[in-house]
């Protein structure tokens, strides 16, 4: 569908107009951000119907609460927070955890002090720029994400895919910053391991000569 509003209007300008009751401005904002919200929901929930529900809830919530948006964060960060909250509710329901927070439910294993050591270390055959988005690459990335524990995946999605700060990611997931950083580290290391298995050049493989206490 073609955007009705001139594309030059900033989010801030559109928000002002929408707050004043301009439906076209709101529609333009939705069009601009809907894919990002839907993508986050798809990556968090891996299920189309649930991702659609989260997307709809997010924008319905915007209709309801736009007047509360003060522009302290960017609009997209605000939207992603709303979407994350809605997605977490679905995740908790799936697990039968209505009251327990994600943090409480998943915390204990994060107290362990060990960091997984890199196993397969090799240069990649191609740069990320050369690895154009083929279907194969996309499948590889999705599969590697699916292999992550949920608690690691959620942190990685918000921080590295969506570009939220550690603080924003922690706030959106109801985690401490320290815990968020630890989860992010584990996620990054695990994804590196998996992608390198496929994208790494075995000819350049390095074996660690150092002693690594495990």
């Amino acid at each position: 569908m073609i955007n009705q509003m001139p594309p030059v209007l900033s989010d801030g300008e559109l928000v002002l107009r929408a707050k004043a009751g301009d439906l076209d401005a709101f529609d333009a904002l939705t069009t601009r951000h809907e894919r990002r919200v839907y993508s986050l929901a798809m990556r968090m929930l891996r299920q189309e119907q649930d991702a659609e529900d989260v997307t709809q809830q997010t924008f319905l919530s915007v209709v309801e609460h736009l007047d509360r948006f003060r522009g302290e964060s960017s609009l997209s960060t605000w939207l992603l927070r709303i979407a994350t909250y809605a997605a977490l509710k679905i995740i908790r329901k799936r697990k039968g955890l209505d009251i327990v927070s994600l943090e409480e439910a998943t915390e204990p294993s994060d107290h362990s002090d060990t960091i997984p050591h890199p196993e397969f270390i090799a240069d990649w055959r191609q740069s990320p720029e050369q690895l154009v988005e083929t279907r194969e690459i996309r499948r590889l990335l999705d599969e590697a994400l699916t292999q992550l524990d949920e608690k690691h995946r959620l942190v990685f999605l918000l921080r590295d895919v969506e570009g939220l700060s550690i603080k924003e990611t922690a706030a959106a997931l109801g985690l401490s910053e320290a815990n968020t950083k630890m989860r992010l580290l584990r996620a990054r290391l695990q994804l590196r391991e998996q992608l390198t298995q496929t994208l790494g050049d075995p000819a350049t493989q390095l074996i660690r000569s150092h002693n690594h206490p495990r």
Partner: protein
Amino acid sequence: MKCEELLRMLNEYVDGTVDPAICEEFEKHMAGCDPCQVVVDNIRKTITLYKNGQPYELPVAFRSKLHATLREKWKEKHPIK
């Protein structure tokens, strides 16, 4: 700095939020440790690859339904005076 310590500082280093003094040690270690150098490079590429990933497109039918629902809700919230 040992490999283990480098691993712990990996986030801060890759995100550019590491303390300058530690950054220096980090780079000194990497200069003499190929595996750590490659791991850091792999991690950067991993993040870039995900960051540049294409978004999912909304199913067409869902998108029209969504916009219709939102317009309706909008009109309830902002009745024409």
